[in-house]
């Protein structure tokens, strides 16, 4: 009896519909899933940007440790030719935000950012870090000074430290957008615009007018711009080979 059964290989276990589906993908490379080949990947940055500390669970967060490896993978994957960054963020950790912005800036793949809803505070350097930046007509960007949380010691050094942190953000924004440092500082320390704070809210076109964002637009413009960049990159590579 046993000999008779031995040559037949054990049947793969397929108990549930979900597992079966994955098995067909693995074993036959077939699936009923609509396979859309896309050369543009999309990175949504939502809620708070989380860095050194885990924020309480009521916050919707984008984690630095997720985003950075994804960006590295996108940079290395030859099938991905462009990256669209969708921003709807209320800011967050300064260092995590700047880290993400620095990685985006140093990518060789074409990048386009689109601010939808809001791209506030630390979302501003991330928005300007892309090669081309867009803002939806109704989207807003809040520019305001950095505040210190927790125990604050009232000594001049505290102010100097905060000023230094602020300068990091200002310098980055100035370097990667068309806004001047003086103008950005002016917007940052404006009074009478925000109810609880000093600073400015830029709505859609305002952000373009001050030189922070390149254009007002939506997904159509974003994809069109990315495809233009991808074409340029391909031409550049072609020129190099000839």
């Amino acid at each position, binding site marked *: 009896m046993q000999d008779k059964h031995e040559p037949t290989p054990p049947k793969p*276990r397929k108990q*549930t519909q*979900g*597992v079966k*589906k*994955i098995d067909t*993908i693995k074993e036959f490379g077939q699936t009923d*899933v*609509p*396979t*859309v*080949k*896309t050369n*543009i*990947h*999309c*990175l949504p940055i939502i809620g*708070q940007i989380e*860095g*050194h*500390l885990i*924020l*309480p*669970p*009521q*916050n919707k967060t984008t984690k630095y440790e*997720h985003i950075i490896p*994804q960006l590295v993978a*996108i940079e290395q994957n030859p099938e991905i030719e462009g*990256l669209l960054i969708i921003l709807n963020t*209320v*800011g*967050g*950790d*300064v*260092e995590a*935000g700047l880290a993400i912005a620095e990685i985006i800036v140093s990518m060789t793949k074409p990048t386009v950012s689109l601010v939808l809803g809001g791209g*506030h*505070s*630390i979302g501003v350097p991330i928005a300007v870090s892309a090669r081309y930046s867009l803002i939806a007509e109704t989207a807003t960007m*809040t520019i*305001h000074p*950095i*505040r*210190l*949380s927790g125990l604050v010691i009232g000594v001049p050094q505290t102010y100097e430290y*905060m000023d230094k*942190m602020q300068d990091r*953000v200002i310098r980055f924004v100035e370097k990667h957008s068309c806004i001047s440092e003086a103008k950005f500082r002016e917007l940052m320390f404006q009074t009478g615009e*925000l109810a*609880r*704070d000093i*600073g400015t809210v830029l709505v859609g076109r305002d952000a373009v007018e001050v030189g922070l964002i390149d254009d007002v637009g939506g997904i159509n413009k974003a994809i069109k711009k990315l495809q233009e960049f991808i074409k340029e990159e391909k031409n550049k590579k072609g020129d190099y080979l000839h």
Partner: protein
Amino acid sequence: MILYTPLPLELVLLSDDSGSPYQEIEYDGVTLVVEPMGIGLGKIVQVKSTDPSVYLRPELQPGQQIPLSTRIN
């Protein structure tokens, strides 16, 4: 750590010690946030991927139930 946000800090840092009911798993190469539904089952809450085509896969739609321990066959 410096938080740079227009939200009031008391709102951001408000802690209620309840912890997150969600769990993050890797399913078929995709990172998913799931809500455990009982033994070995989870409901998809969020899909985390930069590949837009992943969001079109019917079995990965938010609200779908998936087995939690996919690695044990």
